[in-house]
Each structure stands twice: as structure tokens, then as C-alpha cells.
């Protein structure tokens, strides 16, 4: 393409990028601040003048405290376990549900889908007390199960995957039936590979939400051994508020890092998944 107004085009691009950079900076600022604080000694944190890079480098001490004062690796491991289990259960429930809602014809399907939409409207906090009571009845409070089971069914996941499954042509499913695939095999061999970007996107939503979740673990769990990272980080604050800002921030950095790495790895697929959603 030949630009008719090269000057104007260039100015437009500069303006576009300026806006994008500004927004990105705005979003990144808390992270930068977090990293900066995690490297500073306690005195400097409360100083009036602000340096991005600490005048006295205290990073080693802060990170040592963060890693030793609390069982940080244990928290990370718990986080990994809980998030993996939640996501696995969600897939186990969502994929067949979404397939049935998208591609099978049965009486009451639309009513069921409306029920899913209603479920989407409910804030998870509203269900906290019923969940708490139920877990108490089954004697599951303060266990891994208490962290995992309430999230096993994701209405958001059912909704998202149903939309994706609907975009797969019926003829492919008919062809698969004629080729001798059963319904579960159609899901496994056709639907899942064809909607991999959507599943990745859903995975990121799910893992980020539950890795960072503080509300529910705070209610369901008291033991340190099964605390998730977000809950574990509270230990720093609880002890002597204020004094431990450096290690607290160091802990926060350690907790955020795995998510960032995972996102960077899955970034391409995540964006593909979202792009497909917007196209429909």
C-alpha cells in the first residue's frame, strides 16, 4: 500500500504508540514499584524522596527473609497443586457440558443454557457461605478439597467453550459420527484439538483467578501447610505490620513470577483464543 499522506500517517502512528505506552506504563507502575520496594531496606521504604533503584541495596536480605521466614516453596507448591486440580476438574465438567449445550439436541437445552447464564451473573462471594456450610457438613474444611471443590464447576468455562464449540461446523461432527466416533471420542479427537486456543485462554483465566485468589482460601483454610501463595503472603503482614514491607514485596514478586512466565509462554495461544472470540 502506498500512503497518500505519509506525514499524517506517521503522526498518527506516533500518537497511537504514545497512548499505548502510556497505558502500559500505567498498568506496569505497581509492578515496578513492587520490584523496587522488594530491593530496599526498611528505612528507605518510608523515606520521602523516591528512588527507583535503592541507594542501599537490600534485595538479598529481603528475598532471603521471604524465602525462609515462611515456607514459600510450600505455598508455591500448594498453589500449583490447587490450581492444577481446579483447572483439571473444570475441564472435566465444562467440556462435556459445553459440547452438549452447543451440539446436541435435547429437550430443555435452552433452559439449561439460561441456567448457566444465570450462574454467570452470580458473584462467587455470594456462594461463600453456602459453600462453607456444605464443606463443614462433609468435614472438609481446612483441607485441599475445601480449596478445590467449590470451583470444580465453572459457568464461565461452560459458556466460553460452548461459544467456541458452536463455531465448529455441524458437518464435521456429522462426518465424525459417520466415521464411527462416539460422542466422547468426538470431544477428545475433534472438539478439543480444534479449540485448543480457547482452552488455553480459559486455562489462563482460571489459573490466574485461583492463583491470586485470597478471599476463598482466607475463609476455607487456616493451616499454613496447605496455604496458597496469596494466603501465605499475609503471614508477612500479620507479624509486625510495616516493618516487613521489603520481604512482603519480595514474597509478592516470587508469587507473581510463575504466572508471568506461564503467560509469556502461552501468550501467543492466549491472544489467538481471544481474537477468535471477538471474531464471532
Amino acid at each position, binding site marked *: 500500500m502506498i500512503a497518500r499522506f505519509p506525514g499524517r500517517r506517521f503522526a498518527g502512528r506516533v500518537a497511537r504508540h504514545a497512548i499505548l505506552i502510556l497505558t502500559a506504563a500505567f498498568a506496569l507502575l505497581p509492578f515496578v514499584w513492587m520490584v523496587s520496594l522488594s530491593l530496599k531496606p526498611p528505612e528507605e521504604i518510608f523515606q520521602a524522596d523516591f528512588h527507583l533503584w535503592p541507594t542501599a541495596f537490600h534485595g538479598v536480605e529481603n528475598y532471603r527473609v521471604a524465602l525462609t521466614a515462611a515456607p514459600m516453596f510450600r505455598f508455591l507448591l500448594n498453589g500449583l497443586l490447587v490450581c492444577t486440580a481446579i483447572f483439571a476438574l473444570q475441564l472435566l465438567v465444562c467440556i462435556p457440558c459445553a459440547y452438549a449445550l452447543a451440539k446436541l439436541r435435547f429437550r430443555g437445552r435452552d433452559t439449561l443454557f439460561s441456567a448457566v447464564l444465570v450462574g454467570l451473573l452470580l458473584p462467587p462471594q455470594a456462594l461463600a457461605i453456602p459453600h462453607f456450610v456444605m464443606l463443614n457438613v462433609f468435614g472438609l474444611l481446612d483441607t485441599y478439597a475445601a480449596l478445590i471443590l467449590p470451583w470444580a464447576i465453572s459457568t464461565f468455562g461452560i459458556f466460553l467453550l460452548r461459544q467456541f464449540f458452536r463455531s465448529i461446523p455441524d458437518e464435521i461432527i456429522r462426518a*465424525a459420527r*459417520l466415521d464411527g*466416533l462416539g460422542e466422547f471420542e468426538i470431544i477428545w479427537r475433534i472438539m478439543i*484439538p480444534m479449540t485448543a486456543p480457547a482452552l488455553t485462554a480459559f486455562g489462563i483465566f482460571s489459573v490466574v483467578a485461583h492463583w491470586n485468589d485470597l478471599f476463598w482460601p482466607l475463609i476455607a483454610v487456616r493451616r499454613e501447610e496447605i496455604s496458597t501463595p496469596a494466603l501465605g503472603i499475609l503471614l508477612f503482614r500479620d507479624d509486625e505490620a510495616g516493618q516487613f514491607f521489603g520481604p512482603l514485596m519480595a514474597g509478592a514478586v516470587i508469587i507473581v513470577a510463575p504466572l508471568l512466565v506461564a503467560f509469556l509462554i502461552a501468550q501467543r495461544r492466549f491472544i489467538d483464543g481471544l481474537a477468535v472470540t471477538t471474531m464471532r
Partner: protein
Amino acid sequence: MGVRSRPYGLAAMAEIELRHIEKSYGETAVVKGVSLSIRDGEFLTLVGPSGCGKSTLLRIIAGLEEQDDGEVMVDGRCVNDKRPKERDVAMVFQSYALYPHLNVFDNLALPLRTRRLSFAQRLPFVGRALPGRGGIEKTIRAEVEQAASMLDIAHLLHRKPGQLSGGQRQRVALGRAMVRHPAVFLMDEPLSNLDAKLRVQMRAEIIALHRRLGVTFVYVTHDQAEAMTMSDRVAVMTAGELLQVGQPEQLYRDPQDLRVAEMIGSPKINVVSCDHWISLGASLPPGVDGNTTHLAFRPEAVGIAAPGDRRLNGVVASVENLGADIFLNVALADGCGTVVVRTHPDGSRSEPGRPVGLQIDPACLLQFDSAGMRQRQAEQVGAAG
């Protein structure tokens, strides 16, 4: 027609009989009491305008769709409660419906794998390690390669469907259907996504494939030219009803119903109502019966003559020269419609605007009543007189 030898693989006999098939979606009746028998080894085409229920009928034969009433019989056995995979049919879809995440080889191998490997051998991850799988995979590979070389796609086995052209995808879809030697091939508008040139080429290839396999083909299309050129017999459907079944030339020369006459043949058959005929001052041909409301004649049954008193007269509106034939569109007076006339290029040239008379061969005149039904007796009287 009739039973052909089956050189490629061993397919079962398959006569299909549909008995009073009914299907509706909600309030709309899509298929209305269709009965049809399809002979073993026959190439039968279901033709009709879009939305006439022909694809639904095909899916009912495949078992992908359940009819509300009626029976589907294959070789005298009712298959109503058999699932698609148990019916020994294969289908080629309009969109080809290839699996986009699998390469051509795996697309072709899938129907064989689902049939030959046991449940355990098909399990993800574990299945590969199970005994016996290697041997089965080997024979599958050989059969896929044989089918692929028959269709001239052997060099594409490692590509994904997204990397293929329309014609290549079409071949892969055919390959996936034939690789497991079904007794019946069902094709749902398989050529409508191809460009005109490729369509003609694939038409010939599908006919050749039918000859080679010798199994029953049921082919759905809205294109009467495909129906006429490819089929042993054609079944014409409109609005869920089966109007007529017959050999292509029979449908062309001897249609039961005005809608069949209008659907088959290109350019379309000329239809002039008796009222127009009279109002234009032409005398009705001999033998036209009181029930007859419409007279129809093919473009080749009309000749151009000088305008005359007792015949249909009009003015040449446009001329279409196709090389071998020239079609004249003759506008009848008073807005009574147009008549298409086929003329020979060697004959006298007609320019638009020239007044002409139409000379219609009375033996080729078809009479229809107000419901569109053919009036045969009246025609016989007319031919005799």
C-alpha cells in the same frame, strides 16, 4: 445400470428403500411422506431447489437425523434404530468437513482406525503401546495409500487440509468416504464449492469413481445439469415432496408435473397459459382438453417462422449465441411472457426487434392442468388428430 462388478474392495449389496418418510422441524414439514427405492449399484440424484428437504432426506438415510415417521430399509432390513456407523454408508459433505487439525493421512485413516482398533487400542497414549496395534496400523497405511493413489492425492498425505486447494480437499473428502468400502455413498452437494471448470472435471471423476466402485451412490444437488449428466436416475423434489423419479431423458421428455418440467433442462422449458394463447389470437393446438391450463414446450421444439394469423407471434428481445446453438428470447405481445427458441447458427440470423412467428411442433407440446399435473390423454388425442 444394474449390478456392476466391484473391482475395488468388497462392498456389500445395498438396495435402499424409503417408505413414507416424514420429517418436520417444529411446525415446518421438511419431508412429506417420501417413498423411494434405490437399486443396488445405482447412481441416483436427488435434485430440487434449496430448502426442498433433499439434504434432510440424505441425512435420514445416513442415520444422522431421525425421521418422525416412516422406514429406511437397506437390503430389506429396517435400519431405523441403527446408528450412522452401523449403516455402512459414507458421506461427502458440501464443506468437505475434513478434520482441520489432522493431516490428510490421518483424515483418511480415521474411519479405518475407529472400525478396526479395539476400544483399548484407541485410548489416548495407552493405546499405542498395546499389542496388535502395529499390525493393524500397517494394513491401514497400505489401504490409505491405495485409496490416495487412486484419487491422485498420494503426494499430499502429510499436508493439513488448510494447505490444500478446493479440488484437493474434495478428493480427500472422497478418499475418506471410499477408504472403508461402504455399501452406499451419500453426497451432499459435493461440487458446489468448486469453481465452474473444476466442477465439470470433478463431475467426470465422480462418475468414473462410481463405475469403478460399482456401489450405490445417492447424490444431492440443486444443479439440474449435474443431475442430468451424472445419474442413472433422478428424483425431483420440491417443498418436501417427491415429484417424479426417472431416467434423466425421461424427466426431460416426459415430465409428470409442471414443476419437474421447469426444473429440468436449461434453458428452461417455455410455458404459456391457454388464456394468453387465446388472447394473443393464436388458435389452440388440436386436442387441447378443457382441463388444460398451461402448454409447455422445449426451446428446441419451436421454430422461427414469418408472423402469421393463427400462431403465436412476438418480437425478438435478445439473442444469446453459444457457438453451437443460438437462443432467441422472443417477447410475446401484451407482456404475456417470453419464449426461448433454439436456432441453428447456420440458419437465418435474427436481430433484436425483429417480429417473428413461432412454429411449435405439436407432438412436443406438453399439457398441464391448473394443479400442474400432466394431461396425457388430451395429448394423445391431439397427437392422433
